[in-house]
């Protein structure tokens, strides 16, 4: 199987914030299936949609999408997150 044209952390960010596909889709004005397509890397969102998604999550767009694979979350990162939530 070939690599997707881009890599997305949308699913991770969405589930982390307990958002359904439908909620997110409604917020950015697309069909909920479109969110699924983007999460699976089967559809490259337009610049406008990518920016809308980034704005919705209050993140820079490169935190959601990348041309290179995202590094896996390592133990150090997870520890920092645990400390941050205490």
């Amino acid at each position, binding site marked *: 199987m070939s690599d997707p044209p881009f890599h997305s952390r949308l*699913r991770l960010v*969405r*589930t982390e914030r307990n*958002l*359904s*596909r*439908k909620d997110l889709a409604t917020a950015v*004005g*697309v*069909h*909920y*299936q*479109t*969110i*699924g*397509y*983007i*999460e699976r890397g*089967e*559809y490259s*969102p*337009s610049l406008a*949609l990518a920016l809308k998604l980034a704005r919705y999550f209050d993140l820079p767009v490169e935190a959601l999408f990348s041309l290179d694979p995202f590094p896996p979350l390592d133990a150090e990162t997870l520890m920092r997150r645990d400390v941050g939530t205490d």
Partner: protein
Amino acid sequence: MQNRQRRRGLATAFLALLAAFPLVGWMTGRMWPVLVLLAPYAALSVLLAAATYGIMDRPLRGLDERELEQRRSLFREPYVTGTSLGIVGGLVMAAGLGAEDGLMMGTLLAVVGLLYGLPSLVFTWTLPNDDSVIGE
């Protein structure tokens, strides 16, 4: 059963119905039994549209960017296929002029139905399984 299997079942039923048009016309030799098949044809067309979220039928302004891209990308190949089928249909009609009314009407409706329904059929066949609304 997954959505994709259901959709493909629907597409197969649609094709079977199209095949039934000339068959019924040929077997009965009359026009009215062929015209009766228009009722299930209309019902199956509506079901096909519903199964694909109406992406092939909704107004363009009602589609989001991914749906719009899918709809546009589908029309490239089906247009060529449709044109070819139209020519074949014309030849079939010309050959059918000598046949009895039922067969001619059935063949005509099958060809027109196929030309009209081809984009929906292709889309129905290729659409992947639905994502859940909630997402995991």
